[in-house]
């Protein structure tokens, strides 16, 4: 009888542990399941990021003008320079895919404060995100991508998804109203999720940010001119001169949605130009240490905090899963090789 009680205590404790680890709920969406979806749709490409797989690394600096200090105590907003490393990439999990005018482009930046704290942000060239929750993201991926077995989209999958997710249909309309630029250098990049900025008095302000190019926006071409034409264009521009963007902080008002990345805030919201991001060197992932940086959007300095947006924690978890998988794998050469970057 007592022996049974002891066995029972051990089994219950062990069972609770496995339950917490998701062993009894195999159909719940987990970080591993999200990354499995990328591998299912794109194939597994060892050593590469499971999303935004094709990219190139850059360095530069952020020159703060001090304006951001009004809403955040983060050191990065004090007047002065902080070094940055970054990565331009194309959305999608295929590291050797050809550049196309319609592929979503991204810019990830790591700001390295003098006190050792870091701010990492992964931004894209669409003004709102396509989904509101990680579950919807996983379904959207499956509905919007070609079936790996047939190479064709599953008929009816996307209309069914949009019927279930009107917020995605609305977001796609907003995205359609913001045509892409011609290249990486003349594009704005949006952080999409809302965050909270914390000032020296611990006052919290809802904020979204984006970077807007100093390079003149040129309308997107309709056709690709080469397999790596977007990257080659960026390389040529950076060989000629540094590129710069202004970091714009948009301040939310009470009632503005912070937990829905598909919804833009009203256009009249106050904006703060916090300073200039300058990028002056470019390097292939084959040699750059930036290849091994996880641009987890929740690596934040004191003075910037997550909002209630459910995508943030999910991104953090899924990026970590992708990072852990690729770091242990043998590295294949990047499509944007050192020779490509130096030509």
């Amino acid at each position: 009888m007592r022996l049974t009680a002891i066995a029972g205590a051990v089994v219950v404790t062990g069972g609770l542990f496995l339950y917490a680890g998701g062993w009894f709920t195999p159909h719940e969406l987990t970080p591993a399941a999200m990354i499995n979806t990328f591998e299912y749709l794109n194939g597994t490409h060892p050593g590469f990021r499971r999303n935004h797989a094709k990219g190139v690394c850059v360095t530069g600096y952020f020159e703060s003008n001090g304006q951001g200090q009004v809403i955040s105590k983060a050191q990065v907003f004090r007047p002065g320079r902080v070094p940055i490393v970054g990565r331009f990439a194309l959305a999608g999990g295929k590291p050797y895919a050809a550049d196309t005018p319609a592929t979503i482009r991204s810019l990830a930046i790591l700001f390295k404060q003098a006190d050792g704290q870091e701010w990492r942000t992964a931004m894209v060239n669409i003004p709102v995100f396509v989904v509101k929750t990680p579950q919807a993201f996983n379904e959207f991926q499956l509905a919007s991508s070609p079936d790996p077995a047939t190479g064709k989209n599953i008929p009816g999958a996307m209309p069914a998804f949009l019927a279930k997710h009107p917020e995605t249909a609305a977001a796609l309309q907003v995205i359609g109203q913001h045509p892409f630029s011609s290249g990486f250098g003349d594009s704005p990049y949006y952080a999409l999720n809302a965050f909270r900025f914390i000032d020296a008095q611990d006052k919290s302000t809802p904020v979204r940010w984006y970077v807007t190019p100093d390079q003149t926006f040129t309308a997107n071409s309709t056709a690709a001119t080469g397999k790596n034409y977007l990257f080659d264009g960026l390389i040529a521009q950076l060989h000629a001169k540094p590129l710069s963007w202004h970091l714009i902080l948009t301040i939310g008002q009470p009632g503005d949605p912070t937990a829905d990345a598909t919804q833009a805030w009203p256009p009249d919201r106050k904006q703060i130009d916090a300073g200039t991001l300058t990028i002056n060197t470019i390097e292939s992932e084959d040699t750059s240490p930036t290849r091994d940086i996880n641009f987890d959007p929740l690596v934040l300095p004191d003075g910037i905090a997550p909002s209630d947006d459910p995508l943030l924690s999910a991104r953090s978890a899924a990026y970590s899963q992708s990072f852990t998988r690729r770091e242990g794998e043998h590295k294949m050469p990047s499509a944007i090789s050192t020779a490509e970057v130096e030509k």
Partner: protein
Amino acid sequence: MSTFTKSPAQFALLSRILHWLMAACLLAMLFIGVSMVASLGDYHTLLSIHRPLGILILLLAVIRLATRLLTRIPEFPPAMPRQERFVVKASERLLYTLFFALPLVGWAMLSAGHYPIVMFGAVHLPPILPARPELYATLRETHTILAYLLFLAFLAHLSAILFHTLILRDGLLERMVPWSVRTVEDKSEV
């Protein structure tokens, strides 16, 4: 004074307090850790607790080891067989090793993975290893294996103490209870 040379009835008070405090921290930590692996929505909150709690456990482990080495420990129950005493001593070493290894591997893993080691607010720790991808991957795997090993060691520890307390009733648990237990000899001296 015969009581001077006799072993104490219990572990030192500080050891007993640390035992129960660390038990609570470690059990919470193991559940937080395994939940993080499966969690999307709570991942960030869990991780924000996981890092400073791990460092707290490392600090407690340092004090605990020092206390363990500097204080006298109670005897095993007289009826405990030699082989079991050996197993108990080995499992104690294993647990102490894991108290140190798990937080240190976690800290080293974040260092090798090029992550800032954020505690809370502006407080963060320096890296203890250079950023190296293959090192990160190995340490990440090691962290998981050691955590499962610690959980299994905890289950074994729990079964053993329940067996001694409920079946053998040899008073083994009294050596570690936080309150003071007076031995028969003590009582006779009053």
